[in-house]
């Protein structure tokens, strides 16, 4: 069943077209990789889906509901959660409060004991449950990333958008991170992940999209996509009369 339906999504900033008529579908429970060189429009596409930016044109349908051009908070309440490319935690709040936020204001709108137990559960999932009342601003970079993921999970989203969540981790942390996302996939959640680390993409995503200068240049099974001539050209440059 189609979870997200994107039709001819377009975003231009003045004369620059950052996302150029991109169309694709995501099925429920799918883990989709979104690849492409720097500046190819991946994060802008995520921003369009999450409502951080309004599209110039195009249609976004989540579970049959049109959410084109809606505000970010309305889209969040429809069940889309995300992490940010540059980690964004709420530094003056405790870990527990950080994670309570989307549980309280997201699709479920919980309060009281329910919100605390969802928040605890999410912190447990990422391995931060022993520091509930620590201040988020004091965390290390990796723990901030974990916290951000826990916050996205506490929304109990139908669709999770990860923007280079695995970037900047050392090999051990990367292995833990991949295992963490793998454990999520068994819960039936749908994930779109922007990622540069091919090891992670191969391990996690059966299907990939590849963007280059705003256009979608490949969509298909990961193995096939990664050996596609256009994709290799996008990353390494055109092979001319070699």
């Amino acid at each position, binding site marked *: 069943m189609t979870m997200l339906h994107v039709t001819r999504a377009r975003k231009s900033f003045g004369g620059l077209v950052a996302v150029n008529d991109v169309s694709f579908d995501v099925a429920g429970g799918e883990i989709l990789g979104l690849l492409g060189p720097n500046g190819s429009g991946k994060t802008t596409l995520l921003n369009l889906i999450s409502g951080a930016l309004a599209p110039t044109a195009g249609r976004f349908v989540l579970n049959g509901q049109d959410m084109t051009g809606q505000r970010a*908070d309305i889209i969040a309440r429809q069940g889309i959660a995300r992490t940010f490319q540059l980690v*964004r935690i*709420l530094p*003056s*709040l405790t870990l527990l409060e950080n994670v*309570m*936020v989307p549980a*309280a*204001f997201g699709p479920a709108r919980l*309060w009281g004991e329910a919100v605390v137990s969802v928040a605890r559960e999410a912190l447990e999932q990422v391995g931060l449950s022993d520091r509930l009342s620590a201040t988020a601003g004091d965390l290390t970079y990796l723990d901030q990333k974990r916290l951000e993921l826990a916050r996205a999970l506490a929304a109990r989203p139908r669709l999770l958008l990860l923007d280079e969540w695995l970037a900047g981790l050392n090999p051990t942390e990367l292995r833990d991170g991949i295992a963490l996302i793998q454990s999520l996939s068994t819960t039936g959640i749908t994930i779109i992940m922007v990622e540069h680390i091919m090891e992670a993409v191969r391990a996690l995503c059966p299907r990939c999209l590849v963007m280059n200068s705003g256009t979608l240049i490949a969509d298909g099974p990961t193995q096939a996509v990664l050996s596609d001539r256009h994709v290799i050209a996008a990353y390494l440059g055109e092979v001319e009369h070699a």
Partner: protein
Amino acid sequence: MSRIALAVVTVVLLAAIPGYLSDYSLGLMIGLVTYVTLASAWALFSGHTRYVSLATVAFYGSGAYTVAVLNESLPYPLVLLCAGLIGFLLALIVGLSTLRLAGIYFVIFSFGLAELIRQLITWYEVNVTGTLGRYIFLDVTARGIYWQMLALAVFTIGLSAWIGRHRLGLALKVIGDDEMVAAHSGIDLSRTKLIAFTLSSTIITLAGAIASPRWTYVEPSLVFNPTVSFLTVIMALLGGANRLWGPLMGAVPLFLLFEWLSVSFPDTYPVILGLMFIAVVFLFPQGLLSSAEAFRNRLKGGTA
């Protein structure tokens, strides 16, 4: 439980003291409680969201001026009701049009708002009614004013405590930390800010209305004095604007200090006031309560 009992006893004691005070001391107490109310109400919106508002006197003055206009034509309770309503509507209009502004732009706008309202009223009075300057004759005694203001202060702190435990409080904190994250977590930014701003501004307007009979003679340049806005901000910041008791802890010592300074050094008072503002921002950027907490933790850490 014991905290609530302590609060109740304190309020009862405060309510009982006018009988034992001289007129001067009672006047002092009214001023003190007024600033506790203003600082607490200011912090209700600005404390968590970090939208620094200099519009306090725009609402405070509007409240006082409403009483000046209506005091002869309506019974007192209705006058208060009208003042509250005017504050509410004004806050709604201002909130809807400005809460999209970020940071410094909001500060400047809020400062300009008080000036705008003052000039509008002056223009109206000069050109339409032809009376610049109005008298307030009400049989509200100083004690009556004190009790009303005390009730408003208790209500304000109670409301802040309630908000702090509910969704609205969490939403305001999140907005203060990161509006992008707030929106992506499902928080309706405009609605949340508007609710808090309207509550805060309505209380401030009521405070102006309640305090107004003390003036007897009212004109725009008297009731829209920007110093009120600055004092309110500095009091809330000194105590800690994002804490329930912070504004009170800042308002009490600063009000008494300013009162003493204005009596003892009437000529140099404005200069001292300016220096104090700078000192508070430099020495206690997080507020007294936070500094005291940090100091206590350091002592504990030192002995452990």
